């Protein structure tokens, strides 16, 4: 990921949102999807992605399925019912945050 604290803090929200939209994804797919959506400007660091995925899994927000793909095992992550609720909360938090930042950066001055 671009070496920016702001992006790093949003990694879990990004993961949850992508899984909410796509259903299930594997680690590499998530990195590629983020790159594609942001036109290559945002690059998730693998060293941060997997720890986040494992943390979300042990918190009960994600569940894992394994499948044999070609000559290797692939792990697919998807939201649990608890994770679906959490994803909604996280998106709301992010929206509130963005609105607040917007208000600070561009204050509407009324006369």
């Amino acid at each position, binding site marked *: 990921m671009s070496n920016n604290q702001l992006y790093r803090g949003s990694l879990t929200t990004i993961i949850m949102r992508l899984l909410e939209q796509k259903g299930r994804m594997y*680690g590499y797919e998530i990195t590629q999807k983020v790159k594609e959506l942001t036109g290559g400007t945002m690059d998730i660091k693998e060293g941060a992605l997997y720890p986040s995925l494992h943390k979300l899994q042990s918190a009960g927000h994600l569940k894992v399925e394994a499948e044999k793909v070609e000559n*290797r095992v692939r792990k697919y992550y998807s939201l649990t019912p608890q994770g679906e609720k959490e994803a909604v909360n996280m998106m709301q938090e992010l929206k509130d945050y963005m609105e607040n930042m917007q208000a600070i950066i561009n204050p509407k001055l009324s006369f």
Partner: protein
Amino acid sequence: MSKLTQEHIEELFVFTQKHYVEWYDLQSELVDHLANGIEHQWEVDPDISFEKALQIEFKKFGVFGFMDVVEERQKSLGKKYSKLIWKHTLEFFKLPKILLLISLSIATFYLLRLISVSADYLSAVIVILFISYFVKLSVSCFRERKRIKESDEKKWLFKDIIMQHGAGFGLGLIPIHFFNMLIPNTNSFASMNPWVLGCISFLFVLICVMLYVMQVVIPKKMEVYLEETYPEYKLVG
């Protein structure tokens, strides 16, 4: 589009092992990630060598390589293990097991009252018990490691945590301090305040229950817990 061969996949497993990832559950996920990355590079530049493409992919994990991934996984599975210990220990607070917990505590209480030996001796016995527990644990862990190395069996992180009793080494040391804190300045248990002695008896039984959970209950259900933790556990046997 070029795809990785079985030999390449095996090479990737060795690569993760060389970079301090011992456990199959983590290795397989990282191997799939590296393999996808390398295949993607081949799509763009088919002439790039396997080794070079692998180095490029590995660099993306940052300066600490796979360390962050391993550490975080250890932490979260360690937490999961602690929760399991508590879950099984709390079962002793429900009927019918609570009757056992109470009767054992009462038995310990009266036994301690009866013995007029100095509390120091009992502390010494407890310390010796704990030391033997750690020696036994270390020996069995060492044997298990050797067996796995020789048999080429897959290693699973959660299995290792269960076998090594998770934070057992740290957890086991707490009670010794407990007893040292509670026991000083008293010549024998018989002359001790019954409430304090009651607490000591209960804590002692509780610790024994936890050790029983760690040594017997959880290892007995290991397969169930491994299948629950690792969806690939059955897939690869």
